[in-house]
């Protein structure tokens, strides 16, 4: 039959091809965003570093940041960023992890049905509200506890703690996810050997979820490092190299938002400096995200 060879002949279906091509372009667009970010940050940073008064070594090692008077050492900003983030992690990780354990292992369905939306509410509150909270609640609280003399009105501690609260729902939900995706069989095996619930949780489940958990923690850290409004309102508005969490110090994001809130002159060294700092911020968070992603991929492969 001669028709036989034509009966399954491919149809062209041009419109399907066009649709697919458009969708592909859309997907490619996200790559364009990253390229855009990188190009813009690099270009403006290049302008910053090509300013004769700026040099890379000084930028990386200088202990003073005051571009108006040619001080371009970003260590104070970096230091404050890490101070707030570490404080945030000190609060967020244990509390978030315990909440996650409670949700995954202990809470009844009904309890979880109440708690998870509550956490979602907490996660959905705009960060400006947290900033306001840091200023009007956390700082006065710290000053009450540790003394007005000891605690400055703007301080990295208050901002850090509030960022800790802010990332808590993120940690709790993601950690719960990691804990819940540890196969039920492992728990059963532990119980079947006469392990108690707590022994099972700490010695079997959490070790098994460790890579998923560390991915969560890294992501939370990256979120804390990038957090802006809380530090803008509560951490302080002057670069300062200090390890004291009760002192004011400005973070990278705080500086960027302060300078751009004041509106900067294009092509001034101030304007370019925020892009250079943006680049630093991007590199830090991007690296953290990449590592976190890698780890969590491994984690999911383990249990799929």
């Amino acid at each position, binding site marked *: 039959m001669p028709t036989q060879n034509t009966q399954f002949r491919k149809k062209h279906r041009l419109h399907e091809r066009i649709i697919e091509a458009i969708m592909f372009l859309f997907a490619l667009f996200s790559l364009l965003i990253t390229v855009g970010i990188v190009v813009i940050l690099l270009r403006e940073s290049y302008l910053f570093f090509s300013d004769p008064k700026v040099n890379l070594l000084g930028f990386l090692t200088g202990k003073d940041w005051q571009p108006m008077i040619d001080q371009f050492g970003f260590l104070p900003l970096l230091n404050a960023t890490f101070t707030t983030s570490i404080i945030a992690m000190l609060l967020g990780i244990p509390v978030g992890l315990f909440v996650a354990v409670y949700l995954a292992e202990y809470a009844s369905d009904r309890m979880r049905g109440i708690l998870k939306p509550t956490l979602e509410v907490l996660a959905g509150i705009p960060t400006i509200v947290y900033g306001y909270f840091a200023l009007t609640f956390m700082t006065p609280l710290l000053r009450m506890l540790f003394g007005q003399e000891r605690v400055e009105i703007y301080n990295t501690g208050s901002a850090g703690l509030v960022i800790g609260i802010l990332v808590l729902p993120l940690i709790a939900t993601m950690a719960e996810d990691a804990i819940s995706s540890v196969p039920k069989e492992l728990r059963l095996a532990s119980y*079947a*050997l*006469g392990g108690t619930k707590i022994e099972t949780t700490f010695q079997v489940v959490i070790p098994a979820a460790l890579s998923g958990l560390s991915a969560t923690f890294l992501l939370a850290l990256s979120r804390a490092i990038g957090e802006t409004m809380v530090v803008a309102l509560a951490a302080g508005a002057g670069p300062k190299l200090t390890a004291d969490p009760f002192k004011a110090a400005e973070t990278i994001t705080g500086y960027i938002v302060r300078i751009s809130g004041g509106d900067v002159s294009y092509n001034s060294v101030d304007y370019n400096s925020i892009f250079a700092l943006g680049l630093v911020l991007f590199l830090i968070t991007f690296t953290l995200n990449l590592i976190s992603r890698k780890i969590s991929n491994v984690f999911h492969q383990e249990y799929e």
Partner: protein
Amino acid sequence: MNTTNLAENLQLPFQSESSVEPLKTIISLDNVNIRYGSFHAVKDASMEIYEHQVTAFIGPSGCGKSTVLRSINRMNDMIRGATLQGKVLFNGQDLYEKSVDPVLIRRRIGMVFQKPNPFPKSIYENIAWGARVNGYRGDYDELVETSLQRAALWDEVKDKLKQNALRLSGGQQQRLCIARTIAVQPEVILMDEPASALDPIATSRIEELILQLKQSYTIIIVTHNMGQASRVSDYTAFFMVDQNRTGYLQEYEATEQLFLNPVHKKTEEYISGKFG
């Protein structure tokens, strides 16, 4: 119908029933009803499990075999909404009495699952862990060795005890799980389709192992494979479901008896592959 012929043709190599000595009951179920929430999963199960025997649970999917099995070491406690009425006695002690701590029961009545589920730790730790949380006071190296030997795994892993258990093959993992169970010195071992995820060779090694272990332990095994039930078990319980999807114990006999001379038509139909 010619029963010997059936046996011959199905090539069912029955365990010789050790009916010389009188059998001692180690576990008995007395009118056990199990529910998941409002769903009645198993109704009115009553049976005696004999010491140092292998008892097989067979029946179509969903008939409650696993559910009954789990009720014996109170593993159903871990399932939300699972409740039990009736009595489960272990050496005469009601396991569902208020004062009984399920954690202590589970050490005495171990369990092996369908999918091999070693902990993502070293082989050594897999064995030692259960003993440690239960406060084992002996020599751990010795414990690991003897347990692995009893599970017929020692020779294969003795040089890589520090290696992650997940890198073993499926059959080895399952034997490791058996070794891990043995390490806490249980009296009874419950096995829920322990070989159904394994290839034929690994399966036959597990079957051999079961026959060895029965000298020291009482074993209850759930299986889908009729041949396996006939090869390893002394007693077989056949479960069925009614139209409400509630499981019940249809027939419980010495294995040979049940396979060759089933009392109920359902049993016969199930054995001959009519459904399930």
